[in-house]
């Protein structure tokens, strides 16, 4: 167990074959569904980024290059498990077929925004899809995932929790506290570091990534640490399954480092040309997760270029339709939920301050 965190677990080799002991042996159906989720994520991201340029939303963040992670994990885990995501886990929702219109409505902060206008675009919350409420603060939900998992164990429930944190964010105290609790209470939780090499403008060395691997942080807690090729849908699936099995059989938590690369800008506010070579993504040795899975299923004979193009075209028009529907309701500033919503959900029941203030605002 002590050497595990220093390797790199892969299933898809450079030629696109699934090899080695970690091969999860997925069905053709599952593989295609995974590819679909990843492609949908990418299509959606691209479209939204463009809509931001047009002023239709206040903010956007892409997960380009990291789509395998959410997709594989979302599919590998059970519907009732709970994910405590980062803002780059959209493919989790895509794999679970979260309605695109709801995404769009939140991104436009319009009258049908499922979060009622209170939260930034992309900081989703989707309880029924096993997706815990996101917030702008990075890292601060890592410990809640452990508590949620402890609660599940407390109730003799079989649900487990999975949480994500960026490589840069592992430097927060939250990371350590969550792992300590996970270890001490043997919580049924999978704790994932998405090491996409960058934290806005700083490379992973500023989180200690040059001194050792992120998976090796597991050793500090006596937990297994797996270092996974995060651009390999099959490896991500296999590692997640392994950790889920461990958690569900009450053997405790696992730390998984997902080694990947943030191919796009940090967010719509960022200009990565200022701090890294613009072609770095193209030279990323572990490739593009979409192309790798596509190559694999093509090699398996269940996929070809025609199908691929058709799928992309279909997804593009799905996205287009959702955007249209959202635009019909309204884009940023053109439509918004009732201002009453500003005063709701501060508490379960508003106190006199909120009631008075709502009246003061004349609504």
């Amino acid at each position: 167990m002590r050497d595990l965190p220093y390797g790199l677990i892969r299933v898809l080799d450079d030629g696109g074959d699934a090899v080695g002991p970690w091969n999860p042996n997925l069905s053709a159906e599952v593989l295609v569904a995974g590819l679909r989720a990843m492609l949908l994520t990418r299509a959606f991201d691209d479209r939204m980024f463009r809509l931001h340029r047009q002023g239709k939303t206040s903010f956007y963040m892409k997960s380009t290059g990291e789509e395998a992670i959410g997709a594989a994990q979302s599919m590998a885990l059970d519907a009732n498990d709970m994910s405590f995501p980062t803002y780059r886990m959209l493919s989790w929702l895509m794999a679970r077929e979260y309605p695109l219109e709801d995404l769009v409505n939140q991104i436009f902060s319009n009258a049908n925004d499922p979060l009622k206008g209170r939260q930034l675009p992309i900081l989703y919350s989707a309880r029924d899809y096993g997706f815990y409420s996101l917030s702008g603060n990075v890292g601060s939900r890592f410990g809640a995932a452990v508590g949620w998992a402890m609660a599940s164990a407390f109730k003799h429930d079989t649900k487990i929790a999975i949480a994500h944190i960026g490589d840069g964010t592992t430097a927060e105290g939250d990371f350590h506290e969550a792992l300590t609790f996970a270890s001490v209470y043997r919580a049924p939780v999978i704790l994932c570091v998405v090491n996409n090499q960058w934290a806005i403008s700083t490379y992973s060395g500023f989180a200690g990534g040059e001194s050792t691997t992120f998976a090796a942080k597991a050793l500090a807690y006596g937990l297994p640490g797996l270092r996974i090729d995060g651009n390999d849908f099959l490896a991500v699936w296999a590692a997640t399954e392994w950790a889920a099995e461990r958690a569900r059989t009450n053997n405790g938590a696992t730390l998984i480092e997902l080694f990947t690369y943030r191919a796009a800008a940090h967010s719509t506010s960022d200009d990565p040309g200022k701090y890294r070579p613009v072609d770095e993504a193209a030279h990323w040795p572990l490739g593009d997760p979409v192309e790798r899975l596509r190559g694999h299923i093509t090699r398996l004979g269940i996929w070809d270029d025609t199908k691929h193009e058709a799928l992309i075209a279909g997804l593009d028009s799905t996205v287009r339709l959702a955007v249209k529907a959202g635009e019909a309701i309204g884009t940023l500033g053109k439509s918004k939920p009732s201002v009453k919503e500003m005063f709701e959900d501060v508490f379960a029941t508003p106190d006199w301050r909120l009631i008075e203030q709502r009246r003061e605002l004349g609504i």
Partner: protein
Amino acid sequence: MTQMNMIQALNSALDVLLTDDPDTLTFGQDVGYFGGVFRVTEGLQKKHGVTRCFDTPISEGGIVAAAIGMAAYGLRPIVEIQFADYILPAYDQLVSEAARLRYRSGGQFWAPMTVRAPYGGGIFGGQTHSQSPEAIFAHITGLKTVIPSNPYDAKGLLIAAVEDDDPVIFLEPKRIYNGPFDGRQNQSLRTWANEATAEVPEGRFTVPLGKAAVVREGREATVLAYGTMVHVAAAGINDSGVNAELIDLRSIVPLDIDTIIASVRKTGRCVILHEASRFGGFGGELSALVQERCFHHLRAPIERVAGWDTPYPHAFEWDYFPGPTRLADALRRAMEA
């Protein structure tokens, strides 16, 4: 009814909660096997088992984060922070996560949890075992803050806090755990025995959050206080000779504005008493609210009697502590204004 001191009353509240609701659990540093450094959780692990009452790592952030996750799952965790001074490492969790969860998720998730912490001074605890941080919670939208002043309220308010569907900070004035204290540090220690408020039902009952108590009626001035300061205020009012009404706020969020306003409109004078440093303290909010709503009834400036704007100083505890003399002086000034 039984005679209980505040520790026994809190322990009884926890016992009732753990007994009645299988989704409650309580944890914190030394609260399990040992029963808590102030003994509030004594016997609970033995009675309810190690999954219902347990020890934690020394990690306030981790404790609160775990509680949030549990609460989001559907449990009602009650955590103890060993001293309110040590709640600060969990401040981000309380503010950015617990307080905001319901709002930001559009009501999908919420965090019905209670964070207990012994607080306040008067025990020669020095800087880091004496602070009163209520103001930094009162300002946070989405948090409730409760401060009992006697055993009956302690039990009833704690049960109400746990029943509440929002996160509640429950600050326990440690100076009055074992007996009321009126700020006269040279007098012999009193216990709760024979105090009316120490008659506490053994079973379940609640004291609602947001309902102040008029501890003593009066015509000439209103004194607003909470926690230990309720007892100090009573002594100060006596000393002053002023016929003052004493209001124990019991919870500062939600705040019982109606009771406060009705009293000040009647008396025309108001003195606010708290132990925390004055500047930026909760007294400022109270003063502003009273002034805004009772301006034309005020016959004298509202005064704040509070800790000085220094850290809590060990050897100067009784120079720092806002005792009955300072309150009495303020009341007399109000009468002369």
